C-alpha cells in the first residue's frame, strides 16, 4: 500500500502547493459570491470576464496560430500554464519546429 500512496512528504507538498493554492479561489468565490443575485449586472460582468479569461486560455494553448505558439512556449518556460516536460506536448514541439 505504501507504494500506492508513496512518501507522505510528497502528499504534504500536494496539499500545500497544489490543493490549497488552487482551492482558495473557489472558497473566495463561495464567500464573496453569496450576496449576488442571479440576474444582477455584476454577474453579467463576472460571466463576461470568465468567458474572456477562458478565451485567453484557449488562445494560449492553440498550437495552430504562430502567435499563441510563441506565448505558449514562453508560458511553458515560465512554468505557468505549460509543463516544462516537452514530451507531454509533442504537438506543441512540432509546431515549434515548423
Amino acid at each position, binding site marked *: 500500500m505504501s507504494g500506492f500512496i508513496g512518501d507522505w512528504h510528497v502528499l504534504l507538498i500536494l496539499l500545500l502547493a497544489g490543493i490549497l493554492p*488552487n482551492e482558495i479561489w473557489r472558497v473566495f*468565490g463561495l464567500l464573496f459570491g453569496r450576496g449576488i443575485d442571479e440576474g444582477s449586472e455584476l454577474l453579467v460582468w463576472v460571466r463576461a470576464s470568465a468567458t474572456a479569461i477562458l478565451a485567453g486560455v484557449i488562445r494560449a494553448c492553440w498550437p495552430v496560430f504562430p502567435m499563441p505558439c510563441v506565448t505558449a512556449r514562453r508560458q511553458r518556460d*515560465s512554468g505557468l500554464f505549460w509543463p*516544462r516536460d516537452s514530451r507531454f506536448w509533442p504537438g506543441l514541439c512540432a509546431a515549434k519546429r515548423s
Partner: protein
Amino acid sequence: MVLPALDSPGWRHTTTTFLLGVRAVGSTILTLVLFATYLGIGALAHDSNFSMGWALAGTLFVWAGPAQIILISTLGTGGTAVQAAIAVTLSAIRLFPMVVAVLPMIRTPQTPLRKLVLPAHFIAVTMWIECSRMLPAVPREQRLAFANGLGVGLVSVCLVATAAGYVLSANLPELLAAGILLLTPLAFLFSTARNSRQLVDRLALLLGLALFPIMSMLHTGVDILLSGLTAGTLAYGVHWWREQR
C-alpha cells in the same frame, strides 16, 4: 440526453435527480475531452515519479487540469514547492469568477452555505460550461442535487482516466497526444460559443480571443487574467451602453 420537463414527477426525488446529474456526464463531448486530458496527466505523473495514489488524490482534491499539470511539471523538473504554489494559485484565479457565476444558478434563498461547499469544489471550466447549459432545464430546488451528480460523475471519469494514463504511462502514441492538444482548446471554444446566447457573452469570447495575443506582448506573467478582465469589462461596457439607450 433529454431531461424530464420542469414540472415532471421525475424531479421529485433528490436521489433520482442526483443520478440524472451523473447520467448527464454521458451527454457532453467535454467528458471525452476531460478523459483525454486526464490520461495525459496520469501519464505525466508516472513519468515524473509520483505515486498513483498521489496522482489520484491530485485529481480528486485539486480538480483543475492546468493546476495539476503545472504542479507535476514544476515539482518533476526540480522546482520548489513555493514556486509550484505560486504558479498554481495564479492559474487558479480563473476559478473565482466561475464559482461566482455558477453558485447563484444552483442555490435557493434557503440553501445553507455548507451545502454549496461540494458543488463549489466541483466547479472548473467543464462544470461551468455544462451548468450554464443544463441547469436552466432543471427545477431550481433540485439543481443542487443535479450539480452534485454532474460533479461526482465528471470526477469519477477523470479518476479512471488518471489511473489509466498512469498505467499506460509513456506509451501514449505521439499522434494521439498531439490530437489531445488540439482537441482540448477546440472543444472548449465550441462549447463556450454554443453557450454564449447573449451578445455580452459572445462579445466577451471574441474580444478575449483577440486581446490575448496583444496583452501577451506585455510579458506580465498574468497575461490571461489581464486580457480576460479587460475583454470582459469592454464587453460589459457595450452591454451597459446598449441597455442605457
